[in-house]
């Protein structure tokens, strides 16, 4: 039996480990184009700040691949034939054709660049995904004095803006829509996030479109907004989301839309081909895209188990995101944004924070908070257990605060 895993990120590595755990004999091959072994990608922020060293980014203990007898191949998969179970790998400029028994697509996605930048090669425009990106941002920041522009108000954009501001740079965050952090963030929470950033010296521009750009030599020097203002800058970091790599899936005739379609067991529409991580879309779930760390790892593990013949099911609930912005905790759980009339929203303002619960049929289905000292486990536990909340919202607060 030969298991091929395309992509050595968190989903791919988790899948390989799960396969090895269940079967000590089979051959496992991971193909990855970066050649770096698995790193803690969310910790790149700490690396950029200089809080951790390069060795500490390593996500796996030394000697892991040898211990687990996993082959790690540096190369790019250029084509996939699901009928003949063949893939073509480009290694060192040479194409080789390999066959597989079970295949996992865990190749994730590629960060988007804003369309107005075109495909010019600009020296001060960066993305923030790989270790290489972090290195180049780091070396640029050493000499940079002017304004850092962060494009995109999503999770990555907000976290990057916070990071740069903590490193004493002049930061402006530009968001295309009126949302911050997540789509559907409660209005009052959004205002609080905005105030927090402004208090810490980060300018936030919302609902602004870029109509033109200014370039001098190979550097981007300014953005012209739709209200006519010119924003001068020294560097730009694009955090405008991630597009999954769909070339292989399209070639093999898998069902795709915004990502590769998978069922609850991480199987794609073709036999013996599985997918996990950032490249998938869950069309059967109300939360279709979960491009976060923890679900990716879980997906990888479930795909690995099912590749060896098990029949485990991935449960995207309760999805959960928690971080610190300027040392203030911020968290989102489950369906925090669900609109609709049968949902009951309960808000509570404490002296140092704000919380909002979403309750449906007397059950907690979502929550969001900022500030205070909440801890995520009680929220998750209450949501997962599906306990009925008797006695109104007050008893719900009681259950969470233990």
């Amino acid at each position, binding site marked *: 039996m030969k298991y091929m895993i395309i992509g050595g990120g968190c989903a791919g590595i988790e899948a390989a480990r799960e396969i090895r*755990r269940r079967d000590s004999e089979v051959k496992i091959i991971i193909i990855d184009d970066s050649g770096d072994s698995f790193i803690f*990608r*969310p910790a790149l922020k*700490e690396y950029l700040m200089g809080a*951790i060293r390069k060795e*500490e980014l390593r996500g796996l*203990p030394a000697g892991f691949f040898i211990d687990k007898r996993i082959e790690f191949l540096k190369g790019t998969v250029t084509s996939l034939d699901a009928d003949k179970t063949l893939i073509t790998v480009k290694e060192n400029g040479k194409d080789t054709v390999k066959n597989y028994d079970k295949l996992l697509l865990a190749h994730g996605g590629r960060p988007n660049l804003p369309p107005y930048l075109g495909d010019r090669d600009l020296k001060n425009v960066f993305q923030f995904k790989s270790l290489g990106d972090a290195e180049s941002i780091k070396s640029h920041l050493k000499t940079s004095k002017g304004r850092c522009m962060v494009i995109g108000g999503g999770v990555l954009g907000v976290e990057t803006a916070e990071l740069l501001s903590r490193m004493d740079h002049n930061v402006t965050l530009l968001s295309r829509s009126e949302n911050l952090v997540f789509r559907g963030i409660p209005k009052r929470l959004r205002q609080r996030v905005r105030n927090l950033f402004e208090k810490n010296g980060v300018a936030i521009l919302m609902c602004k479109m870029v109509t033109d750009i200014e370039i001098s030599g190979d550097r981007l020097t300014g953005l012209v907004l739709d209200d006519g203002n010119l924003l001068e800058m020294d560097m730009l970091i694009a955090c405008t989301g991630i597009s999954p790599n769909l070339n292989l899936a399209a070639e093999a005739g898998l069902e795709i839309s915004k990502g590769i379609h998978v069922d609850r067991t991480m199987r794609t529409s073709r036999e013996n081909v599985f997918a996990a991580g950032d490249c998938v879309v869950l069309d059967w779930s109300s939360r279709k895209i979960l491009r976060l*760390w923890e679900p990716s790892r879980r997906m990888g593990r479930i795909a690995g188990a099912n590749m060896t013949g098990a029949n485990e099911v991935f449960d995207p609930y309760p999805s959960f995101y928690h971080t610190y912005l300027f040392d203030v905790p911020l968290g989102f759980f489950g369906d925090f944004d669900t609109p609709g009339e049968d949902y009951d929203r309960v808000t509570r303002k404490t002296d140092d924070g704000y919380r909002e619960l979403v309750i449906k049929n007397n059950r907690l289905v979502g929550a969001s908070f900022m500030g205070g000292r909440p801890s995520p486990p009680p929220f998750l536990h209450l949501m997962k257990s599906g306990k009925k909340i008797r006695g109104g919202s007050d008893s719900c607060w009681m259950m969470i605060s233990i």
Partner: protein
Amino acid sequence: MRKWVSHDIDLCIGCNRCMEACPVTKKHITIADLNMATEPETEVPQNIIDFSFNCVQCGRCVPVCPAGARRDYMVLFIKYKLRAQKPGKYDKYIQIKDQDKRGFELMKQKLYTTYMKLKHRDLRQYMGSVPSENKEILFYPGCYINSPEVIRRTMKLLNFVGTPYNILGGLNTCCGIPHLLIGEFELAEKNMDLLHAKINRSTPKIVITGCAECFEALVRIKAKHKTEYDILTVTEFLLTHRDKFPKVRLRPNITLHDSCRITRRYNRGEAPRKAIEMFSKLVEMENSREKTLCCYYWNMGHDGANDKNRKKRLNEARGKSKTLACDCITCYEKYVGLDDGIEVIDILELFEEALDKEGGAR
């Protein structure tokens, strides 16, 4: 537990903030190694074994985690995995504290108890006996009944307040947290159940204690058995009777050492602050509230290194005030007498001094 731990490993994004915050001396430990060792089926390398037995479960790693993972439980789980091979000194330690002993161990404990009873005759009746008379309040000192001065002080204050109370103390009423700290979950659970039964005999309305570990055990018992009594620290209880105490100024200013469990984990740090404000002026240290540092009471490994860390803490306190007050009895015992340059007091001493002063004036 296993399920929660593996969920927490998934949450970990490797930012290393928990290790930065951790007060335990650690060498060459990366998050990757630690996560791998936490998984249920993997072997634990030697450096992680040393690290996890030095962990005192102070919880400093919890509020810094951006992903909301519980590193303290993860390390506890490593200890649970290792419970068969813990070093000798931990084994010895736990045998003294086991409630349900037999044979030679039971004899040893009886000898020790008899010795303590002879030494402190006035506290004899409270050591090891379980009160059955119904009284509103139960004072539960557990094993710290062997620090008689603190007990006498607490009793004096409780007598002054005037509410009738029982005392439950002695080695055989151990709260079980020491077992928990070295990964003996079953023993800890058993001890807590036994303690629950002993408390219930006198059906108290309020249980009070001055020890952070006992406090945590009581909270856990309350959550498990859904008991009806309230749990208060001694300071919190005395504050409910604050009007009875004379208003005198005792020291120019006092700084406070927060407890890892009472303040950081259960957010009950207001009472000691109010108590200090009653008699003096409070000066906050930089590492206070959830950033508080550990007293290393439960770190049985490196006494030299622990003393160094404790002295560092005392230095920080000395920069703020001449007096350091502790709310938790374990912290107090570790800091008192360590450094001549600063006076370390138990918060109850303030109440006691106020009474003495008032008595003298009368």
